């Protein structure tokens, strides 16, 4: 007589389930699914509250009117701009995208995908009561999340006004208006100080390259272009026309390079090491190696995180970094 304490063999389980021995893998799979589902339920970051939260209406950077909870407890951010704006305004996040690494305390948070491939399921699994997205690149996230009943607020950092507005907005949402206002003043002061210290009449270019050794220069409406304009540097590519894979940049032809009078050339290399840095490669590219700035060695690498990926409250850091380079060259 079989003891009821003994575990059923797989074959017995299969017979119970009415399947043949060939279904062995199927039953293991169904078991695994059960385990995963159970685990995901226990790992949910925020438990759903039973009471209706109070809400109020805000206008976000896309001009949308959004009903947000008055004391959000579980905010998920999907972009470094959103993450840094939130923390600078005195809030905390419960989940982030993989590119958000600042401030350091966010690195322990669960992730929901890369900025270009956010998983709405992963966001939903954290059960947030608010999601902060980036207005220029993440508009497509808004509808799916709202359909799940999650309010979405978009922030932006394409200009100084944007940054101020985003900080103020988020400060209002997390009920930390003083911290946000302080942050705004702080940033403004630092930028003003930098502007005072900036040299006169220096012309610059900001380059980014692609794998085919084509060079693109930052225009006025790009973030690096914005930073340069804040300290009065003359961006020689401010109105450049031409295609580019990066928004706000334009193709800089190698034939124009030798006659370019830029005093300083900044370079940004978005690829991680060990790929070679553009500042090192620029002197190898025909045409560019004849640029007076390149020949004089006035080529400096900028931090891609600060100047490209994490646009936002750290603009003051970016301004100071650029000023420092220009002043020491």
């Amino acid at each position: 007589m079989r003891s009821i304490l003994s575990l059923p063999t797989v074959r017995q389980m299969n017979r119970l389930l009415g399947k043949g021995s060939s279904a062995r893998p199927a039953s293991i799979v169904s078991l695994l699914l059960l385990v995963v589902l159970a685990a995901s339920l226990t790992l949910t970051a925020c438990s759903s509250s039973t009471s209706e939260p109070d809400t109020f209406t805000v206008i976000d950077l896309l001009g949308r009117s959004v009903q947000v909870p008055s004391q959000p407890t579980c905010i998920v951010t999907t972009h470094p701009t959103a993450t840094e704006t939130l923390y600078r305004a005195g809030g905390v996040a419960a989940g982030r995208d993989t590119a958000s690494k600042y401030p350091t305390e966010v690195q322990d948070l669960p992730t929901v995908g890369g900025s270009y491939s956010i998983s709405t399921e992963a966001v939903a699994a954290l059960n947030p009561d608010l999601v902060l997205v980036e207005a220029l690149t993440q508009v497509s996230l808004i509808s799916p999340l709202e359909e799940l009943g999650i309010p979405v607020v978009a922030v932006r950092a394409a200009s100084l006004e944007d940054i101020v507005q985003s900080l103020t907005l988020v400060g209002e949402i997390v009920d930390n208006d003083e911290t946000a206002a302080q942050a705004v003043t702080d940033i403004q002061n630092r930028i003003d100080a930098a502007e005072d210290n900036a040299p006169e009449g220096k012309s610059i270019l900001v380059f980014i390259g692609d794998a085919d050794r084509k060079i693109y220069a930052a225009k006025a409406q790009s973030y690096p272009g914005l930073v340069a304009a804040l300290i009065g540097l003359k961006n020689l590519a401010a109105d450049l026309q031409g295609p580019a894979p990066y928004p706000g940049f334009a193709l800089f032809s190698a034939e124009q390079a030798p006659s370019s009078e830029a005093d300083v050339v900044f370079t940004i290399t978005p690829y991680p090491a060990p790929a070679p840095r553009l500042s090192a490669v620029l002197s190898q590219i025909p045409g560019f190696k004849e640029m007076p700035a390149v020949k004089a060695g006035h080529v400096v690498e900028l931090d891609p995180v600060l100047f490209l990926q994490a646009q936002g409250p750290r603009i003051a850091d970016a301004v100071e970094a650029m000023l420092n380079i220009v002043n020491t060259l």
Partner: protein
Amino acid sequence: MRRVSLVMGALALITALGVLMGLAMGPVKLDVHQLVSAILSSDDHVAHVLVWDLRLPRVAAALLVGACLGVAGCLLQSSTRNPLGDPQLFGLGGGAAVVQALAMAGVIGIGAWGLFSLSVVASLIGAGIVLLFASRQGISPARLALIGVSLSALAAATATGILAEARIFSAQPLNFIGGSFANLGWQDVLPALPFLAVGLALAATVMGNLNALSLGDRVAANLGAEPGRTRAASIAAAGILGGVAVAVAGLVGFVGLLVPHLARLLVGHDFRKVLIVSIPLGAAVALYADQAARLLFMPSEVPAGLVTALLGAPLMIYVARRVL
């Protein structure tokens, strides 16, 4: 021989015209006077740099790569008795493409000479595989071409994978996958010359036997044409030339396919003549393809490989239908 001389003369003229076009035309236009002074003196520094450092190396690269590919195609078509013979199609350039990807990702940091040597070695591996299959009795041309295409696809996928892993993305299809002469300097072209010389020398040692090879290995062996050795040397030479071409400009496809067929139309079926003519003809084809690539949508550029594909793919379909 007179016909060959005539054809060579015409090709030289056409090529010279193409070179002129390549030096004078572009986003910054130079008239003849400016061009001549730019070449001869460095008074107008900008024009001088433009011509000597930007446009001339690019023209030289196109000529060199075109010649390599034309000869390689001719060698492959004659030694494997396959009208679809082409170094890219047969997977000879694949290994070199992987090496280029590794260099771009910063995984291997050797100088230009090392890079070229490694690319050639990698191509010779591909050549070895092709030789293995081509030497089998009774392998059909279609099967050999399929094996080569698979090798090429595998190599391109590997190269793309390496770049994706290194997070090196490009908004357009990568130039080096499409094949392009853009942004090439003298340091990209000069190391190729010795390899070109070696490849051509190797081809010259067996050039005389190629005609006999078309009669089948048994008859060729009986004539004293040493089919085994000839085929091995031909494919090795094609590997060297194909590898150098990829190391310079990426996967410029279809030139090796196109040029021998064109040459045959011009000078007949003697493979010795076809091979000689393939040198300037290949150079001219690549040069003009590059000019089209860079001037048609100025200041934007398309990869030269796109142009050669537009010309070569229909030809490939035509040949495949007729012969396979």
